């Protein structure tokens, strides 16, 4: 199961990482990395470990985009770990944010894939 399986992801189960069940599981609590991400925590200074891990996940998501369900999960985690979350939102006709996106802490314009609710 990958981290971003909509059916398998919940804040509750994502807070536990069982290395024996598959290396792709990850959560803010464990500080792991998304498949394909650099996985380091060095780029997110000034956060506690959970916040740092969430910001790193958001950075990965910024490259790939997220589904509405994944956006909702990031929102839940942002609330749980006290990281500001904005969106989903769009700024029609403006230089930035013309497409549906979210902001997670310092990570801006994470594109929403598919239709927003």
């Amino acid at each position, binding site marked *: 199961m990958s981290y971003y399986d909509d059916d398998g992801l919940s804040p509750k189960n994502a807070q536990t990482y069982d290395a024996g069940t598959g290396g792709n599981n990850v959560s803010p609590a464990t500080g792991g990395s998304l498949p394909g991400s650099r996985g380091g925590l060095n780029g997110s200074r000034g956060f506690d470990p959970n916040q740092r891990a969430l910001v790193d996940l958001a950075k990965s998501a910024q490259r790939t985009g997220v589904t*509405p369900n994944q956006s909702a999960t990031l*929102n839940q985690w942002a*609330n749980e770990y006290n990281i*500001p*979350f*904005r*969106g*989903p*939102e*769009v*700024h*029609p006709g*403006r*230089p*930035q*944010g013309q497409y*549906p996106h979210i*902001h997670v802490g310092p990570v801006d314009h994470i594109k*929403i894939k598919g239709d*927003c*609710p």
Partner: protein
Amino acid sequence: VRTLAIKKDLSTNEYKALLVCLAKIATSFTFVIRPEIKSGPRIKSLIERLNDFLIAEQEVDQWPGTQLFGRTAKLFKFKLTEQSKEILLVSSKGLFDWIQPELPEDLSFLYQDDQNCLTNIAHEKDAWLSLNSDEYNLVLKEFSELIIRNN
């Protein structure tokens, strides 16, 4: 109507001069409270101080510059007077400081007919003025350094 964008690194003095200028041409201002973002104590205090100038308060899923999906925010609209302008002047140091949790979001200004005068997407550091010819000339004359480009 002509549109002028506000530069992103507006100084405090420039911001306050802009508010003074807007008070001459706008008649109301708005900001929003987004429930998905925490609200600090200054927000409650500010709304209490502005209570006498409150025109409307409503749940919205869009406001000038921003549209939400699947959620709403609370839009507050206030009368722009000398007193309410003074409250704004002492409450913030910059146009792009209007971000939760410290302050409500997206302080913007409206004309008498509710058309947008200054629209602000504070977290994007994106704000612009919508001006008729007379106002355009006034702003360019007094505040040309505030402007970064025509949209």
